[in-house]
């Protein structure tokens, strides 16, 4: 570990990895959480309740315990492990992809819940109007519902991104703390604290806080509000 002035190389590596992880997870959840939230917001079936509850469930288990179960599932004897083996894919634990999957699983409710609320707030009328203007349901979703739910997307993304940055219980368990592969900043800070390297921990925490603060600030500055004209 050669020291830079402020942060060690491995700190920097961890920060890079963190931002990548949080970014990828947020993207993936935008992709997969949005249809779930949309369905939950608009479906009239009574399946809605149970499925909505299931989506929120990962939250209630302690992260490292969830990580433990995910590890069992993804490990060579678990169902996901069987699947990856059958498909001839590298096993997921201790890889970046495994980390992404686990984090996505854990952060799903942070994406789905705010989006669902936002979609519900859009109401039926704009979609009816869009239909009379020849927009197919998918078209209307992208051009009407999504823009009107923009603040919900922002909230959901902030919560998901920040939570993925801060989360380390699942990450530590699934990732195995491998430098450059799965050692994200939260794990690195944790390690520093555990090793009583407080100066290092303070520095890295400060960097993460400042970075996050600036990111959030930028998001807020640009915060969309479709109801106000700007």
């Amino acid at each position, binding site marked *: 570990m050669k020291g830079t002035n402020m942060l060690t190389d491995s700190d920097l590596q961890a920060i890079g990895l963190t931002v990548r992880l949080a970014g990828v997870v947020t993207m993936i959840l935008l992709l997969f959480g949005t249809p779930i939230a949309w369905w939950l917001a608009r479906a009239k079936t009574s399946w809605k309740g149970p499925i909505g509850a299931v989506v929120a469930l990962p939250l209630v288990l302690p992260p490292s315990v969830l990580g433990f179960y995910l590890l069992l599932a993804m490990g060579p004897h678990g169902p996901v492990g069987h699947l990856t083996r059958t498909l001839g894919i590298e096993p997921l634990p201790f890889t970046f992809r495994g980390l992404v999957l686990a984090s996505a699983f854990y952060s799903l409710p942070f994406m789905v819940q705010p989006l669902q609320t936002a979609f519900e707030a859009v109401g039926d009328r704009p979609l*009816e109007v*869009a239909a*009379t203007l020849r927009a197919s349901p998918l078209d209307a979703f992208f051009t009407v519902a999504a823009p009107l739910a923009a603040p919900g997307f922002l909230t959901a993304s902030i919560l998901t991104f920040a939570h993925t940055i801060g989360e380390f219980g699942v990450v530590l368990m699934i990732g195995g703390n491998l430098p450059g592969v799965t050692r994200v900043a939260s794990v690195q800070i944790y390690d520093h604290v555990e090793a009583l390297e407080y100066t290092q921990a303070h520095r890295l925490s400060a960097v993460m806080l400042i970075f996050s603060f600036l990111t959030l600030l930028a998001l807020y500055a640009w915060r969309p509000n479709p109801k106000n004209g700007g």
Partner: protein
Amino acid sequence: MAAIDAHFRRDWPGFSLDVDLHLPGRGVTALFGHSGSGKSTLLRCIAGLERAPQGRLAVDSEVWQDAGRWVPTHRRPIGYVFQEASLFAHLSVMGNLRYGMKRVSDAQLVSLDHAIELLGLGHLLDRKPDRLSGGERQRVAIGRALLTQPKLLLMDEPLSALDRGAKAEILPFIEKLRDHFALPIIYISHDLAEVERLADHVVLIDQGRVVGAGPLADVQSDPASPLARSREAAVSLRGVVEAIDATFGLIAVAVAGGRLLAPAPAASVGEARRVHILASAVSLAREKPGRSSILNVLPARVVAMNPLDAVEVVAAVALGEDGEGARLLARMTRKSWEELGLAPGQNVYAQVKSVSLDAGRAEGAKN
């Protein structure tokens, strides 16, 4: 163009709709009825926004809804102006106008520039809807619907938030859509003057049921119809321009059983035009009246009378000394009716104080 066949039946808590309609596939059909009678609901069923389970809807011989068939709203070539403007809050005026337009291939009816000019939206194009006045919002909603180049236009009180000036500009345009483009329009309005000016066909709705339907002239000239009972009761007659008086900007229009002078800045001889005459503009005399500022005095015969209330009555007269011509309504006090000794079958003179004309050609011109 063929006709619109609509049959819908559905119960909501506190309200049920049960209509079976056969509407002409061209011209303007006005839906008329009390607040809460089901006009908007019917329009929503036609647009496919509301689904009546055992409904059937065929427009222009295309089936949009039937036991085995359901064309979703976005595949129905309609334009819909909602009762509340319902603009997209996240789009500017321009974005709203272009939303539907971008989604259809060609602009046969209306161009963007034309719509903007007609509706007076030029200075508002960059505004977001929350910074528009009520009337401005409604104008944008009308433009947005027209720009989808619909084959059937559904309008739910489109002009109710507009001032006279704006109405006076938009109404002729709707007439033009109806006439030049043969665009069928289903139109809800509480403004009888609007209905009488625009409609070819009227459907009277009450408590979710059709209580009367027919060509405007028939519905209007029946003194017992609800249309005849209002302050704006009127008849609309088909006429042909016979002569033009350029000095005074007047034309002479021949209607069945008579000839009327009417203000019309632009017209040409032989053209078919629609003529509106308010019941309140028609007075009756037993003897031929002397000269006054009333231009039109025509012989006619009383055919029917209906009391409006304790004080007033509405009389229907047929033009011509033989009483075979077009029918007018005349509103008067019961006192006048009795003191003049009027009765059905009697010959009278109808003084028509004012006559108004459609801006475009009457639909008859196409025949």
